[in-house]
């Protein structure tokens, strides 16, 4: 039971990482990060239950709240970015360069 859950968690997080690396749309990258984080959450819950420990039950909530705050701030930044730079493609964010 636990091993199935752990494999699922790893699958979810690896999907998140792949999405993070392969997508060009800003929101898709954000969703990739969220997916990675949710895979970690599942892993955390599973490990905590296998120790028969209650730590995960409350810490998951903290992680979720942190994530929600980050998403709110990220969406605000993306909104301003779209209004000023007129782009949602990360390849177009190339004004700042070394040379």
């Amino acid at each position: 039971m636990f091993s199935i859950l752990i494999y699922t968690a790893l699958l979810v997080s690896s999907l998140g990482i792949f999405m993070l690396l392969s997508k060009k749309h800003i929101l898709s990258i954000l969703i990739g990060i969220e997916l990675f984080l949710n895979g970690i959450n599942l892993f955390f819950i599973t490990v905590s239950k296998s120790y028969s420990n209650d730590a995960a039950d409350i810490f998951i909530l903290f992680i979720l709240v942190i994530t929600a705050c980050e998403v709110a701030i990220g969406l605000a930044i993306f909104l301003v970015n779209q209004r000023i730079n007129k782009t949602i493609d990360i390849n177009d964010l190339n004004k700042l360069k070394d040379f």
Partner: protein
Amino acid sequence: MQYSYFLMVFLVIVGIPLFMILISKGARFVINRKRNVSDSIYECGEPSIESSWKQIPVSYFKIALIFILFDIEIVFIFPWILSLGNSSELSYLSFITFIIILFIGWIYAYKKGYLKWEM
């Protein structure tokens, strides 16, 4: 810990490409497709005149963002209510502090006019 070696292999497989991506800022897995007709807004063969980004009133976005922040408050209220039976004065005090902090945020948003619905 039976799963540890699997985890190790998995993370090496994941970590090395991630490291390479971060090293070489430009490289990506995705192939750069040309922007052809199928990427256009309506896909009807007719070249579109403008972009689909019309001026949507910013009130939608602002209210949605503020809604996310106040909606997530329930996550903290729920476990507090479940443990209400054996709570001390410290628990009440800290929860009241939490509500006050949220309330200050709400007053800020209200006074700055972010909740006003103007087109």
